[in-house]
């Protein structure tokens, strides 16, 4: 069930009420049942794959621990670890990347005018598979490295892998954080009024971002991108900016609702977004966007490859590997590979040009400690990120390149001066609602940027009339202006194919 659905609005309170009433010992099993119910509401068959991943990593961890206890040597441990990783990645590759691999294979053989495989394979793509696979792999690697205790309680471990708030689109949790908390689930004080309240405020804020902003701007983005060959360059730029907003609000809303829901049950998940569009550089951007994934890649891939400690060339290669794989993680298409590669290239180039840049800054006597310098860096970073989004949104490479050509060769800036922007899919009223909501989002993000404080704690610090006013405001905005009901489907969360 989607977070922005009536089903979830019934599901969550029921799970919560039972959770608060049952004896402590039953908490983990109840959440596990709820999580599987939540997952299977998409498709009961999905349960099979997540159980396989759960069992594989659970047993591998126990075997690895046995190896340590019985001092059976490193070789055995390594074999178990590698086999487990390969098994899980294989499942991921088969169910997610089969058709992509077929495309690549055909791409090669087509050079010789041979199409080796005629038909695409019709295969189930379970929602959230990229997320929980990485979460489980993180665990087994942590156990191998002795960073975390192996979990003998199967219920608790299975809950760690499938915990419903973050199961389908993150944040990707580390065993050090979430698993340890689940271990102590009987001892958490869940009857914490402030925590539960803050959880609900976060959920509301997430629903606002998703239903009022993301799903609304998506109408414009879809309208232009789906008809890209009839759209002028300026329209495509506007639509791409719209997509930058859409994917941010969509994905951030999901994480926010996840964090809010988890908090109701007494769990603090890791922050996944930290005002990413205020980043000063691409490197900074990846410390603020999908933090759980980029830190996962850093800890489990970049650093094992040597990170930045292996000389410049190797470092650049490591960066490219990590980001190309990160792109691939997001989607099974060449466009995602290019998207990831672009971000890697951005950072490599920025690093390589560092000295030259500093030279120019000095020569021109540019003041680097003022607001205007920060502003230009933010705008430049945002431009680079937005350009890369073209590849993320386009259906395939041809489309992406066509769009870029049209942006350069067919600009139509006059639509900014006549009322052309109201003809892109959102009329005057809808645009006004969107712009007003963006304004609210900007304020909230500026508060976060300046005070390093999330909206829930900021609101709860205020006087009651303001706190209640803000919550009522969010509820009314969602109730009146949320994209739901007749004329549109509740938009599929973008990250659900992962």
């Amino acid at each position, binding site marked *: 069930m989607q977070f922005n659905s009536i089903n979830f609005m019934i599901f969550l309170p029921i799970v919560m009420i039972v959770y608060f009433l049952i004896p402590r010992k039953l908490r983990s099993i109840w959440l596990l049942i709820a999580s599987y119910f939540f997952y299977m509401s998409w498709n009961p068959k999905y349960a099979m794959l997540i159980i396989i991943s759960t069992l594989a990593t659970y047993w591998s961890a126990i075997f690895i621990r046995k190896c340590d206890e019985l001092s059976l040597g490193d070789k055995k441990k390594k074999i178990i670890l590698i086999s487990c990783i390969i098994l899980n990645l294989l499942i991921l590759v088969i169910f997610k990347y089969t058709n992509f691999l077929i495309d690549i294979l055909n791409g090669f053989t087509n050079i010789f005018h041979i199409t080796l495989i005629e038909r695409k394979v019709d295969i189930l793509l379970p929602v959230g598979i990229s997320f929980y696979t990485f979460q489980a792999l993180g665990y087994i690697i942590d156990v191998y490295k002795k960073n975390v205790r192996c979990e003998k309680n199967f219920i608790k471990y299975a809950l760690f892998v499938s915990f419903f708030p973050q199961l389908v689109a993150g944040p990707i949790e580390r065993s050090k954080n979430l698993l340890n908390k689940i271990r102590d689930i009987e001892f958490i004080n869940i009857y914490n*009024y402030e925590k539960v309240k803050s959880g609900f405020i976060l959920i509301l804020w997430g629903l606002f971002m998703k239903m009022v902003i993301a799903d609304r701007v998506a109408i414009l983005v879809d309208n232009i991108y789906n008809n890209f060959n009839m759209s002028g360059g300026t329209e495509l730029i506007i639509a791409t900016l719209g997509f930058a907003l859409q994917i941010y609000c969509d994905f951030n809303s999901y994480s926010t609702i996840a964090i809010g829901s988890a908090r109701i049950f007494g769990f603090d998940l890791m922050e996944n977004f930290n005002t990413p569009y205020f980043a000063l550089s691409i490197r900074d951007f990846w410390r603020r966007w999908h933090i759980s994934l980029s830190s996962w890649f850093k800890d489990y891939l970049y650093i094992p490859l040597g990170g930045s400690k292996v000389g410049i060339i190797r470092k650049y290669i490591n960066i490219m590997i990590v980001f190309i794989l990160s792109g691939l993680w997001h989607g099974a298409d060449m466009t995602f590979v290019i998207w990831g590669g672009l971000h890697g290239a951005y950072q490599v180039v920025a690093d390589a040009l560092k000295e030259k840049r500093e030279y120019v800054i000095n020569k021109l006597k540019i003041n680097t400690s003022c607001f205007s310098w920060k502003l230009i860096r933010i705008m430049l970073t945002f431009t680079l990120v937005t350009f890369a989004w073209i590849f993320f949104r386009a259906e395939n490479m041809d489309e992406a390149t066509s769009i870029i050509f049209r942006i350069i060769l067919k600009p139509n800036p006059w639509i900014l001066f006549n009322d052309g922007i109201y003809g892109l899919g959102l009329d005057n009223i809808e645009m006004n609602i969107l712009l007003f909501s963006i304004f609210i989002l900007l304020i909230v993000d500026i508060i976060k940027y300046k005070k390093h404080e999330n909206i829930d704690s900021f609101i709860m610090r205020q006087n009651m009339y303001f706190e209640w006013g803000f919550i009522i405001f969010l509820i009314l905005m969602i*109730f009146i202006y949320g994209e739901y009901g007749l004329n549109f489907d509740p938009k599929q969360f973008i990250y659900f194919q992962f």
Partner: protein
Amino acid sequence: MKNIIKKRIIKIVVFILIIFNLLSYVNKILKPKYPDGIYSLNKFYEQKKNTIDVLVLGSSHAFESINTGMLWDEYGIASYDLGGAMQPIWNTYYYLKEALKYQKPKLIILEGFGLSFNLEYGDEQVMLKNTIGFKNSKEKNENIKISVPENRWEDYFIENLLYHTRYKELDRDDFYFNKNYRYYDNWKGFGYNFKTEKFERPPVEIVKDDKELNKKNEKYYRAILRLAKDKNIPIIVILAPYSYIDEDIQGRYNKSSTIAKEYDVPFIDGNKISKNIGIDYATDMADALHLNHRGNEKFTKYIGDYIKENYNIPYRKGDTDYISWERNARYIEREFNNQKIRESEDINEIINLTKDDYYDLYVSIDGNANTDDKEIKNICKILGIKENNAKGIWYIRNAKTIWYSGKNASKKGYFNIVDDITLDRHKIDRGKAEIEDGYDYYENDVIINKNKENKAKNGLNIVIYDNITETLVGSIALDKAEKYDFSR
């Protein structure tokens, strides 16, 4: 500790109450209030219990052809037109069931247009208008289940899904909930149609055979007849005359008549007896499906006479419990009078029709026209204008001048009832040469709700506003260049 918990519980409860009330209020604003099915039922709930003696059910054919005002005036009958747009028979069944929870009519009139349909479900508009007007009840749930395909049930049970995007279309009616406004206060469901289109009488006699009804239709048709019988309420089935009929449809009507006979229920096919009713399809039709104001007067008279002859319906005139029917009848009469004014081509007749204390006439004499011009001298006299050789704006009621600005005076008057009326005589810059032509230095504006209604730049304008119906009836412009020929 206990205190804090108490405080928190109170906070939570108060908060939930605030949210619930706020959302209900917002929902009330967003909910469509279409009179054809939704508001007709809302208003029905407001009627005093057990006051309706004749209940008319059905589609737009029902509520556009039975004139509640005439039934009251000529027969003292307290009736209500409880209809919905294109209402399928199954919805009519539930409207009846719901109605009987609140009223004990002495006679049910079922208008049978819905019997001719051949669909499993109505389209989106039809489903919406004929279901969401219900108060929450078992009947509402059953009604939805039978009117709406299963994959749409969620939308209709959680109504907000259907209409919350109406924020783009909100209007005065949405915020005022139709109170103290126009005809709604004393409304009895009658929706008059003033258009006129020429049609021909459909030759319905040539269809001799019965044609099977749609199964769903027949099931609920019989259910309606049985329900009336069970409750011991006499019922008659009528068909209002209209012209858009083919053989299949008339066949179904014939079958409906046959079925009615099984239950000893009278069946009046308006088209078959159109001559007796006196219907002239060239003047009495608003469109291919509906009678207009002339048609429904004739048809209502026929039905009224029929009721008088065959049923004992109490005469309610003079009963203070029924005062809203009296007001409703007066309102309808007024609307019909306004229509007469609109259709008249004779200015003297028009002025006569508006000679009472509730018609406001805003008369302006503009440009180079003058009260002494021979073509309009008499009109000015009848209107009650006393000034000679004058231009200006007169606000006249029942031949008495209430407000006047003319000659060399700049004056502005604001008259606000439901609509905002501004009478503004102000100086404008005209070239010297034109003074000799007798042109006015001044411009007269009769502005109603931001629209300038006095259209003739040189001539006599009469803008008619009715205070009873709170509507602009029309504006007449007699242009001097056209020799004050009548035009609208």
